[in-house]
């Protein structure tokens, strides 16, 4: 086993996700504490040049294979596990993301390494790692310790600063040969999102609605408020999954990242997957009937109250 800290990076359409840089920033702190090397793992096909953006790492391990050209859950899980197996690093960081969620558990089971999910902080002392996970939709933090010697983590987006991990300059690159025969899952295509609707990333004012709205019959009052404010309506994921609003209006992890001048959150609890999409808004005002809703940790102003009272009152005053 080595003292290294591995960061499993991810990219789509030739672009790294911010989470890769965030993990490099976090990984650097852990590596300083363990006295180990920070290693970025890069997988792709004819994409070695991407390593030039991973200057924050001491070294890049690059695996090239035609099955790694686009993310493939089976191929990437196999390749990442093989790379980890060959080095047995102390810590492996994967992103809590659509790609990372396929790789962390694969490494954990195949290498018999403990796995900790939704990680927002890591500290190292002596032989053990102490890790904080954000559970229960952001309502409860759980601290865990492992003395297993090595550990895989699934890191929450936003847990560290992407800018701190974004450094150009090509570190040394080790090529890693992977054998990816017998794949039963094949990548077919990427389908780009619909661009015909209002682009909520360009709207200065967003009135955003969550499951607190109860049913689609209540949406017109939200639209009326948005119109009075001169803004657009956006929403949390359950509203889209219920088919009450189109995907183009979804804010969050699998929706869009927005940064409006005003984000008015109505009946949204503030799960980490939602926060990821709106935490950088200039002014966040949240209305929620639950005083313990995590959204109040991120909002600048909070209104504990019933949205069915607040919305008409506010619309009436504008």
């Amino acid at each position: 086993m080595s003292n290294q800290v591995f960061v499993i990076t991810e990219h789509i359409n030739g672009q790294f996700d911010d989470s890769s840089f965030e993990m490099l920033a976090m990984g650097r702190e852990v590596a300083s504490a363990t006295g180990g090397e920070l290693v970025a793992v890069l997988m792709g096909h004819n994409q070695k040049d991407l390593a030039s953006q991973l200057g924050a790492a001491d070294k890049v391990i690059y695996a090239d294979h035609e099955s790694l050209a686009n993310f493939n859950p089976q191929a990437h899980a196999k390749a990442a596990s093989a790379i980890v197996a060959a080095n047995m690093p102390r810590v492996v960081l994967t992103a809590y993301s659509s790609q990372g969620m396929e790789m962390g558990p694969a490494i954990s089971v195949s290498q018999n390494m403990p796995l900790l999910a939704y990680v927002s902080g890591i500290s190292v002392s002596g032989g053990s790692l102490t890790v904080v996970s954000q559970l229960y939709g952001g309502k409860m933090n759980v601290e865990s310790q492992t003395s297993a010697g090595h550990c895989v983590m699934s890191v929450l987006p936003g847990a560290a600063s992407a800018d701190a991990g974004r450094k150009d300059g090509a570190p040394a690159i080790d090529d890693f040969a992977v054998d990816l025969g017998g794949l039963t899952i094949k990548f077919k295509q990427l389908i780009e999102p619909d661009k015909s609707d209002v682009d909520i990333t360009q709207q200065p004012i967003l009135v955003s609605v969550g499951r607190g709205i109860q049913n689609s019959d209540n949406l017109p009052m939200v639209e009326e408020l948005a119109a009075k404010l001169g803004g657009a309506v956006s929403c949390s994921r359950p509203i889209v999954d219920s088919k009450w609003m189109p995907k183009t209006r979804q804010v969050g992890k699998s929706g869009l990242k927005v940064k409006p001048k005003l984000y008015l959150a109505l009946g949204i609890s503030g799960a980490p997957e939602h926060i990821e999409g709106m935490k950088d808004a200039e002014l966040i005002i949240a209305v929620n009937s639950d005083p313990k809703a995590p959204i109040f940790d991120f909002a600048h102003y909070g209104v504990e109250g019933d949205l069915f009272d607040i919305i008409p009152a506010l619309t009436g005053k504008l």
Partner: protein
Amino acid sequence: MNIIVPIKQVPDLVEGLEIDDSGKDLNREWMKFKLNEFDDHALEEALILKEETGATVTAIALDSDDVDKALFTAAAKGADTIIKVTGVSGTGLSSHEAAKALANVIGGMSYDLVMTGVQAIDDRDGQLAVLLAHYLDKPHVSVVTSVTVAGDQAVISKEYGGGLVAEFEGTFPMVLGIQAARQSPRYVPVAKVRQIMRSASIEEVAAGDVGVSSGSDITKYFTPVSGGGAEMIGGSAEDQAAKIVELLKSKGIK
């Protein structure tokens, strides 16, 4: 085609969560449970596939609080078989143990697809779907939003950020982590669940040797400081609305 849908109950967040005296667990005494919402989506997608292809659907759960209700509800919605895995307690169990216990039982069954929720609010040591896939030694796709079956293959949509979707083609068997079904999970009236409780029965199967652990220990639970960031606006709804308008004016927004 056979589809297996592992489901589980999670604490209902509408009720407040309380830390117990040890500081290392939740107080589960008065806890209210509900079906993990993503498992509900997995069941819905499986039931849609049943309607399209005549597949059989088996819902399976580890023995835990309130689990019979969840299994009978799945049967009332259209699951053909409901199984309870005994010998491990599902409440507060680590994801590794849960995945291994399910793998022990599912491994002995005949299946084409295992479909479970993409995640749950309490999976501290990882999301179940991919752990289960690896204990079963089967390929996986997670964060799935649609499954289209043709012969012994399926086309699967997987979601990335920003509404970007990747399509994969996979050969059975495989394990899928379902993010959202093609339609909202169906609703079933309580009367129908009661009726099925009289006609259907839960099959019980022993978990067998689990022999894995999370590999980590919980040292404490703690609540994030709520309201830590926000300045709270008090008063009646009318007062609160007036203060919001004032605030927007002062910021030059309105």
